[in-house]
């Protein structure tokens, strides 16, 4: 008996190895995997930095941290016509260490004087490698926090969603009849609801924390279209000879369902999962960007804050407020997408080139 188990284990390990080899051959999949691992590393690094004391929580905390960076500024009056001797273009005034008198409000300073002012948002320095935002918080730390949020949200909602749709899809395929009809109509219903407005509604509900959102996204995703796809896959599995033989040899329905049909639907489900991670992260970012979520920190929120503060149209002058968060969203979702592509080639032999 144990021997049999060992063999089964060995076969599984071999299969895994083979799949891994196939996956490794997919250039795109590997690029994606590296990206995902990079962000995973970032999200793990932050707590380590805090625990080991390399980072002081008071300064580097992504939400309530504050880095005091005062600097002397020369009060100048920007000319109306350009170019002048000092400034070539109008974007040159005020310079890095200057402040335009017209924008001073609570100050009696005159042109030519220097005043001490807070430097936020401060550009990247050795202390803050991606600079700070306008509230003096470390952007790099925020990126790490956002990365944690993205992983929690993406993986949780994807797992939940795919779990639900796999179970429902298999049940629909396996039991058919009324159950099938009910589940399919339920999917129709969910598909009829327009996604983005639906998310607006949901975000208006009580305090929506990250994991609440993950559950909501997962449930909506899990009840919607993926049930239909998984069902059709399960239907194909259901008519395979080994399922018949299991039935003939007296396997219970549940047994057949769980030990034969589910494992054969699993690769497709895994694929779905990877792709729905992308969707979940993107949804969160869009909601944050529209200012509809009440979470402490995320990439979408970072961009939103940069936007409401008016940094987004400053060209590249405040690039550290815009680019890191925007690119993180793009790259992590893209990374997961590429991993999905790679897996697709592993599980779908027709996509392989040889």
């Amino acid at each position, binding site marked *: 008996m144990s021997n049999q188990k060992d063999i089964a284990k060995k076969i599984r390990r071999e299969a895994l190895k083979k799949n891994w*080899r*196939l996956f490794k*051959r997919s250039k795109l999949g590997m690029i994606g995997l590296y990206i995902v691992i990079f962000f995973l590393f970032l999200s793990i690094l932050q707590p380590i930095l805090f625990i080991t004391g390399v980072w002081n929580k008071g300064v580097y905390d992504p939400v309530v941290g504050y880095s005091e960076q005062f600097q002397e500024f020369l009060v100048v009056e920007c000319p109306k016509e350009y170019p002048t001797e000092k400034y070539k273009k109008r974007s040159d005034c005020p310079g890095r260490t200057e402040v335009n008198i017209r924008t001073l409000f609570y100050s009696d300073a005159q042109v030519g004087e220097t005043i001490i002012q807070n430097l936020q948002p401060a550009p990247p320095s050795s202390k803050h490698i991606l600079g700070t935002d306008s509230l003096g918080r470390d952007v790099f730390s925020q990126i790490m926090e956002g990365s944690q949020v993205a992983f929690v949200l993406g993986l949780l909602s994807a797992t939940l969603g795919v779990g639900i749709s796999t179970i429902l899809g298999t049940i629909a395929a396996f039991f058919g009849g009324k159950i099938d009809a009910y589940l399919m109509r339920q999917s129709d219903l969910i598909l009829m609801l327009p996604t983005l407005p639906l998310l607006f509604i949901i975000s208006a509900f009580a305090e929506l924390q990250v994991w609440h959102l993950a559950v909501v996204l997962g449930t909506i995703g899990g009840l919607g279209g993926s049930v239909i796809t998984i069902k059709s896959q399960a239907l194909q599995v259901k008519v395979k000879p080994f399922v018949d033989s299991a039935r003939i040899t007296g396997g219970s329905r549940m047994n057949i369902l769980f030990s034969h049909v589910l494992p054969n639907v699993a690769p497709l489900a895994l694929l779905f999962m990877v792709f729905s991670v992308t969707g979940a992260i993107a949804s969160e970012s869009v909601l944050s960007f529209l200012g509809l979520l009440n979470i402490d920190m995320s990439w979408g929120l970072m961009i939103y804050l940069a936007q409401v503060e008016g940094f987004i149209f400053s060209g590249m002058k405040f690039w550290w407020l815009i680019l890191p968060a925007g690119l993180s969203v793009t790259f992590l979702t893209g990374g997961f997408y590429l991993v999905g592509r790679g897996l697709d080639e592993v599980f779908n032999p027709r996509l392989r*080139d*040889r």
Partner: protein
Amino acid sequence: MNILEVKDLDMSYKTIDGDVEAVKKVSFTVKEGESFGIVGESGCGKTSVAMSLLQLQADNGKITNGEIIFDGKNIVGLSESQLREVRWSGISIVFQGAMNSWNPVVKIGEQIREAMREHYPDKTKEENTKKIIELFDIVGLDSSIIDRFPHELSGGMKQRAVIALALSCDPKLIIADEPTTALDVVIQDQILKEIRKVQEVLGLSLIYISHDIAVIAEMTDNMAVMYAGSIVEMGKTDKVFSNPKHAYTKMLLESTPSIVGPKKKLRSLDGEPPSLINTDSYCSFSYRCPSPDDNCRNRNIEMELTKIDSEHYADKCCINCG
């Protein structure tokens, strides 16, 4: 006159596990109007040979050595557009599994006309249609099938249509790659007769590829037996049948029931064909050789065809064994 001359053809596929040498040093010739058979187990390289002739091997397959001289011209290394001229109007092919040879969303007639347009750009649609109806007549199909979609046809009809398709551009050589595999026996027989008839009526050369040695016997003038990418025995069909020399040929013959002649005990082919990855040029059949004779089981004999008599060759390895 030789319509086709294959000389020392080597072909290999790159795969995840290493290079597969699917065709090794294959040489044979086909004369005009002659039918030539290739027989062997699954995976022995028959289809690879057929694909090499049209240079239709998968992207990872490559002809590494040898010449294919068709109609006096070496077609190995020709450019894609030159090859396109050879294909179908020079060599056409009837694939195994006719159901999959048709594009499911295009009408039968259109798919045939499409080939004709490519090779006879000046013909009008009416001329083409007329010709298709003639061809359908030859293969025993109704002209109404022109406007049908592939899924509306039965398997046998599809296969007949495939033959008509293969004939549409007046090829000099038709390759029939297991054309009857998926068909039931009665239809198989009809199709075989059809092919034979067509070949005789139109005076075409034919390469018939099958795993069924009985069919080969019925269909071909000359034949070759392939094993693991190499030809192990080749010659006039009746000579090979009456006097098989190679152990593998013998095994193949003995594994096939015959409804005529004395009752014989059927032998199953023991063992599996070897993996074709990274093999050398030494005897690949030795370990399956049924004979206990050391000479027969000697792996170190280099494979090479040796002449038995006129128009009959066999491989040196495992010759006269079993």
